Structures are given as structure tokens and as C-alpha cells.
């Protein structure tokens, strides 16, 4: 941006008209139908990017209203998995369109209105009430203020399914008694480190899968990387952003950028596609016109790596020699593959582990059906999507399904049980960590 330009660029998230150009890019070819998980289940045009873009067009031109319950319902019948962007010939940035529309609703009607609108799709009055409370807690939209830990789920997840009565069989990991960041020092020191990294844990790893986070730290240690884990870091903000809450993600983003800056690290490491995506893309976009934070966001975007890409491409990691006997298949988390463009690296790592037999599943990059409040508001569709994933997993004959995103771990874990899969669900980094650990014993 040249210094003399006075007009602040319009941000699509702040001004809806700014998405018109993005809408115009869509040539209505329907290519997105081939990959959209929601469409695969329901088979209607309003499920898929092409239809949603047409509706957005109708909203901009005034023939439909943004706060029409039907429009709101359609907007939230989307996992923002970005699969459609992969197969789009004209590279329509559908993620931006969707989030700009959601942000516009919040701007016009406010968050409480939106929350009510989303959960009013749960027709059962009792469900509505509980869905409002628990669903909102789950997806972060209940939290308007950023507390010490940003967005922290309060109720043990394991309780959610039954209480909300969606399904007797809902299996979720329990909330860890001590979260990851409280278990670890703020700096894991290494003598003569090869690199100095900051670890952005994300909420799911912090609260549900602290062991995975510890595995990640262990792997960095094994590779002589010094790790900072600042306690001041908060939720990445994606869970609120997908519900249109621009203000909160900006608050969270500032706080995170400051926390990471204070570490003085050279790299930022994530083990979750959504968090890493926020650092690589969303922060840059939401702060594009911010005089102070635009630079910081740019700076860290260029230094953010998923742990697998960091190991393979930046520090050329030490190949493990400890045996892990397992038949492993890998699920591409949407945001890891489609936002962070990481898909080759975790597979290479898995194949490097002695004892691992790797089996590729069909449609490994098809969404697992997790995504914000989606699983609560559109339980049937989400479960149908997950069933396809479970079937792909089962067809491989693997005993372990690895992935690179805690939210996918949760969703797959829950649905394996529902659809009779017996596989273990692990973050790929845990398999590598186990291999390193087994080196001593062999």
C-alpha cells in the first residue's frame, strides 16, 4: 500500500459491499458441488457455495434480506471447510464471502440476536434452551468478553451430548483437570538450540488434549528447538469469527500477537489447522487496515508453521528410530490442508516412523463434519458427513487414524464409536513422539 494513499481500503468484514467483486468471480459452473460435504448429504443448491453466492448476490441487490431467518439459516448451514475453494476454477474466496456475511449480520443485529437465530433451528423448545447455553459455550459465541484465558469452555464436554439430548451416544473427551499451559513452564530451555520457537497451543489442545501438546513439545525438544509457551496467549478467535464476531477475534488477535512478540521467538508453531490458519491468514486480513497490528500480523504470518512443515522443511528433523507397531491412516483436516496447505508433510512423518504401515484412505481430504456450532445446529448432516469419513477409515483396515487437528480428533473419535469403528484416534505428532520415546527402550 503506497504511503500517500489516503482512502482506507475497504475490508469485506467491515463493509459488505466489498464482497461484490468476489461474488462476480463465480461463474456458476457448479464445480463446488463435487466436494461440498453439506451438499453431498442434502443435495440442494442452497447447501453449496454456488447457491450461497447467488443468495449473497440477492442480498446485495436487495431482493433478499440479510436478517431473513431463511438467509441466516442458510449461512450457518456451512462448515466453512473451504473444500469448495480447492476445486473452484476461478478461485473464488468463498471463506471470505461467508465470514463477511456473518460479520455483517452481527454488525446489524448484534450477537445475541444471531445466537438466538442460529439455535432457533432447534425446534424442540427444551433443546433450544440447552442448545443456546451449551452450544454457545462449545463454539465460543457465548463469550463476549475476553477473560484471562479467552474463551474457555466451562462445562465438561462429556456432559454435553446427553444433556442436549441430541444423541445418547455422543462421545467427547473430558476436560483435562489441568490444562496444558498450566502444566508447562513458559520457556522450555535447550542448550545451543537450532531454533527458537513459540508454541501456540490453541484451546482444544490446552483443555482437551494436553498430552498431545506435551508430545509436540517433546518432539521439538528432541530436535533441539527451544520452545516458548507464553501463558498470556488466548483462543485464536476462529470459533467466534465463524460466528461473525469480528470484534472479539480482533481483541484476541491483538492479545496473541503481543504475547508472541514478547517471546522474541523466530518461529511460531501450531498443531491445529484452524489456529495456524488464523496466524497465517485471518489475522493479516482482519488487521489489514490497523496502523499498529497490520505489521505484526504480517510478521508472524510469514513465521507460522504447522509442526510437520516446520520439522520437514525448516529444521530437517531427526528421523525417529523407535518402533511403533501400527497400521495408520491419515485424515486431512480441512483447515490444515486447505488453509495452511499442509498435507504431504504429516504423511511423510508417519511413513518415517519405523513399524508404521501407512494406508491412504479414500477421500482423505473430505471434511469430517466438525465446525463451530455446526454439529449442534445441524446434527443430522454433520453425522452423515462423519459416517462417510468413518467408512473411509474402516475400509483401509488401519488400527489408528491420525490427523493434524484436535477438532477433527474429537469429531472422528465421537463418530467412530457411533458407527462401529474401533480405531485409535491420534494426532500424528503423538506417533512421532512415541517413536522417539521408544528409542530408549530398544
Amino acid at each position, binding site marked *: 500500500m503506497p504511503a500517500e494513499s489516503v482512502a482506507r481500503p475497504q475490508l469485506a468484514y467491515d463493509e459488505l459491499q466489498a464482497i461484490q467483486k468476489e461474488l*462476480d*468471480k463465480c*461463474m*456458476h*459452473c*457448479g*464445480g463446488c*458441488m*463435487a466436494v461440498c460435504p453439506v451438499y453431498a448429504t442434502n*443435495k*440442494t*443448491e*442452497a447447501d453449496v457455495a*454456488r*447457491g450461497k453466492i*447467488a*443468495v449473497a448476490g*440477492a442480498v446485495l441487490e436487495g*431482493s*433478499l434480506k440479510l436478517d*431473513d431467518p*431463511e*438467509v441466516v*439459516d*442458510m449461512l450457518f448451514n456451512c462448515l466453512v471447510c473451504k473444500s469448495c475453494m480447492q476445486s473452484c*476454477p*476461478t*478461485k473464488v474466496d468463498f471463506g471470505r464471502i461467508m465470514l463477511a456475511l456473518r460479520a455483517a449480520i452481527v454488525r446489524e443485529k448484534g450477537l445475541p440476536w444471531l445466537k438466538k437465530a442460529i439455535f432457533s433451528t432447534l425446534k424442540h423448545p427444551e433443546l433450544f434452551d440447552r442448545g443456546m447455553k451449551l452450544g454457545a459455550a462449545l463454539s465460543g459465541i457465548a463469550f463476549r468478553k475476553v477473560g484471562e484465558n479467552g474463551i474457555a469452555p466451562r462445562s465438561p464436554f462429556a456432559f454435553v451430548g446427553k444433556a442436549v439430548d441430541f444423541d445418547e451416544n455422543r462421545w467427547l473427551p473430558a476436560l483435562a483437570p489441568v490444562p496444558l499451559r498450566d502444566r508447562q513452564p513458559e520457556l522450555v530451555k535447550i542448550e545451543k538450540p537450532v531454533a527458537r520457537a513459540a508454541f501456540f497451543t490453541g484451546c482444544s489442545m490446552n483443555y482437551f488434549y494436553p498430552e498431545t501438546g506435551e508430545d509436540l513439545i517433546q518432539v521439538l525438544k528432541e530436535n533441539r528447538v527451544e520452545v516458548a509457551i507464553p501463558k498470556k496467549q488466548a483462543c485464536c478467535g476462529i470459533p467466534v469469527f465463524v460466528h461473525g464476531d469480528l470484534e472479539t477475534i480482533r481483541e484476541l488477535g491483538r492479545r496473541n500477537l503481543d504475547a508472541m512478540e514478547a517471546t522474541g521467538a523466530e518461529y511460531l508453531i501450531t498443531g491445529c489447522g484452524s489456529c495456524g490458519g488464523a496466524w497465517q491468514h485471518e489475522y493479516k486480513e482482519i488487521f489489514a487496515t490497523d496502523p499498529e497490528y497490520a505489521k505484526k500480523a504480517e510478521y508472524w504470518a510469514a513465521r507460522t508453521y504447522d509442526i510437520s512443515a516446520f520439522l520437514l522443511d525448516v529444521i530437517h528433523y531427526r528421523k525417529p528410530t523407535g518402533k511403533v507397531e501400527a497400521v495408520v491412516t491419515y485424515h486431512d483436516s480441512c483447515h490444515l490442508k486447505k488453509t495452511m496447505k499442509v498435507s504431504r508433510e504429516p504423511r511423510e512423518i508417519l511413513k518415517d516412523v519405523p513399524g508404521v504401515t501407512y494406508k491412504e484412505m479414500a477421500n482423505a481430504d473430505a471434511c469430517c463434519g466438525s465446525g463451530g456450532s455446526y454439529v449442534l445446529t445441524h446434527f443430522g448432516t454433520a453425522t452423515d458427513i462423519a459416517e462417510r469419513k468413518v467408512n473411509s477409515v474402516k475400509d483401509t483396515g488401519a488400527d489408528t487414524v491420525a490427523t493434524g487437528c484436535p477438532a477433527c480428533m474429537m469429531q472422528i473419535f465421537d463418530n467412530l464409536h457411533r458407527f462401529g469403528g474401533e480405531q485409535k484416534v491420534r494426532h500424528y505428532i503423538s506417533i512421532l513422539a512415541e517413536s522417539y520415546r521408544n528409542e530408549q527402550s530398544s
Partner: protein
Amino acid sequence: MIDSALIQKLREIVGTGNVLTSKVNLVTYGYDATADVPQGRPDVIVMPTTAEQVQQVVNLARRNGVAIYSRGAGTNLSGGTIPVEKGIVLSLQKMNKIVEVDAENLTAVVQPGVIIQELNNAAAKHGLMYPPDPGTVTTATMGGSVAENSGGLRGLKYGVTKHYVMGMEVVLANGDRVRFGGKTVKNVTAYDFSNLFVGSEGTLGIIVEITCKLLPAPKYRRAMLATYKSVSDAGNTVSAIIKAQVIPATLEILDNMTIRTVEDFAHVGLPVEAEALLLIEVDGMAEEVVAREAEAVVRCVNENHGNLRVANSDAERDALWAARRAALPALASLNNTVVLEDATVPRSHITDMLLELRAIATKYKLTMGTFGHAGDGNLHPTILADKNNKDEMDRVHHAVDEIFAAALRFGGTLSGEHGIGIAKMKYLGNEIGETGLDLMRTLKNALDPAHMFNPGKLVPFPKKEEAEVSHAR
């Protein structure tokens, strides 16, 4: 007229969840993949799951004088699914079962909503394939592609959809369900109804089941890419290859504008000064035959001053194909409106047509790239324009008129594979004449006297009132 009582009856027929009436749904069934055509808004979308339901919907619509627009995936490029006169959009996507793949008879039986690629996946398990491959194989339905008689990249060697349809079950306007054709290679019983309904664009009846032919999938293939300093060298190569009695599975051409845009967009290493590019792929069951055919192609390319690249691995093949795959996306990225035509000429006039297209683009000061299936004379002149610029859109319309006139002058046709729909209806008489139009109307009036099926498409009627009078007789 559609009122709430009728909606209620529709719900009783197909189930509440399969009747869509919300404003959002009405907007999303008002378009297809065609640019620069008016959109419509249906009254209701109905998604039947059985042939019986289709019959009941047809009976109900007929009694109430309501139009029915059959719809597959809505990827056609001639406005064929747009609900121009209100009424029912009948989405067949939930009738998506592959009834059987019969490896012994080399046939498959499918419901209309099956995606072409899904049939291919099922056939591949038996080492078989369903050859018609429009650019939309992963989204388009069997019903839609049969109703459009779709072509694709392998047309030269393997033919188009009509060569693979052996039989059908169709729901007629009177509500009857008829079956014809079947699994036998030979069948001369009755009229050849399959060929009547192939390419009928939803105007004669609703296809509820298709029996189609499968082929053993070729085991070997060789891909090559040649670039040329002149269009006529490329055109001569095409003729030379055919004269050498080699029928490539793929023989695609890209013009200079397309080459430059693709290179800009995808950086695949094309020489931007090349006037034309050919992508050639030979395939077959015997390695030796394929190798011999590839050699013949190499000779033809060299003799005609082409600069050749040959793929020696799957990865290299992908790299060569990347240029062709990027053609439409790259062009489309240039502006907000993509007018994609498919005027087709006899193979021997490919060079003439390419030069004519360039002259038309220059005359109307338009951005136009041309690519397409050189082997079968089927070109895709693609105009990129700004829909908000009225002057430019007017020039687009004039240019399109001239493109069609040129195709007919060279002994070609208005549409090689995209169909007539609403987009090309006004030109139809130029090709088939008044007697041809009369025959179209006679057939339409005989099978669908109330013009219930896909009104306003394919068959031009002078005026609606007149048509009503003529079939009321």
C-alpha cells in the same frame, strides 16, 4: 396455478423434506451454469426419489396446468434448466442409485441423478469405463448429460453420450411410464426412442432410468504436447494425424490468446508466442500399438513444424494436461462474464474457423480465447466481458451472431455439445430451416401438447397464444 393446496399434495407425494419453497431455495434454482441469460424463480422445487413419484408429480402438474423443469446438476451451458415461466423445478438428484453394473454384457443401469464420475468409479472396479467425459464429470448427472447429449474430450475416438445409451425408462406428459431399448447390442424393435430422448433437453419427457454401454478401459496411453508458430501448421497436423489412420483419444487445441492467459495464470512453461498448441493423447489395449501410434503422431507434428514434448510418466502427463485443464479457469479469471460457445465445424475447416474467430474478436474489440476439441471440429470460443458494460455486452451479442453464421457457412453446426436451451433457440431455424422447425414442433406437440415440459427451450414457438391455439385443435 400453484397454491398451497397443490404444494400440500406435492408434499404428500414426495415427502415434506423433498419439497422446497423457501425464498432462499427459489433463488438457488433460478440459474444454471450459463452466463448472460435471464434468471427465473420457480414456484417450488420437488425432489422425487422414485419413478412412481415422478409420475404422480407429472399427473398433478398436468391437471393444474403447471410447467415442469427437469434438472440434474444444473451445469448446462445453454440455459436449459432455467424456470422461465414459473412452475415446478423437478430436481432428480436424489434418484441417484446405480442399479447394476453388468460386466458380462458391458452395460450399466442407472437412475438419472447418478453423477457421471460415480458410474465410472463403479465401472472401474470391473476394469470398465463409461467414456463420455464432459468437463463436468464430477458434478453432472447421467440424466442431464443424456438429455444434453453431452460430449467431452474423448469424442473423436469414443463418440458422445448418444453412442452409449442403449435404453431408457421415461415418464411422458400423460403420466405413462415407458421402457424401450435394453441390454442387447442389436435392437430394432419399434422406433429408436432412445435417440429421440437423447438430447431432448427435458422437453419431451422425464428420464427416470438409463441403460448404458460400458467399454473395457484402455491399459496404455501416451500424451504429447506440440506448439506451433502458425495456426495452419496446427490444423495441418490434425489432418495429417487422421490421414495416417491414427485416431487419438484426445486431440485438443488452444489458440494464442488462451496459451498466453494459461501461462499467466498457471505458469506451466508454455511458449507465449506460440500461435497454437495441440494436446494429443493416444491410448489402447496393446502397448505396442500405442507406441506405434505415438510414433506416427510425432512424425506428423515434426513434418508440420511443431515443437514437441512427450510425457514419459504419469507425472509428466499431468504436467502436459495442466495447460488444457487451466484453459477455461484461466480465461474465466479475466472478467466477470464468460460467454462460452461450442460452434462446431467439419474437422477440415478448423484452421478457417480459428482465423475467422480471431477476425470476429478484432472486429468487435472483444477479449476472446478459443480452445476445444480440434479432432472433432468442436471449438469453444470463449468471450470474456463485463456484464455491467452495456456497450461491450452488445458487441458480445453481435460477435456471437457472427460466430454462428461462420460455423454454418463452413458446413458446421450451432452446437456441438452444449445444447440449444434458451441461449441458441433464435438461431435454430438458420440451421434446420422452416421445415426442420415444423418437424420439431410436430414432435413436441405430439408428445407434450400442453407444453408442460421445460417450456421456452429448444423448440421455438412463434408466440405462446398461437401455440396454444394450434395444439388445442
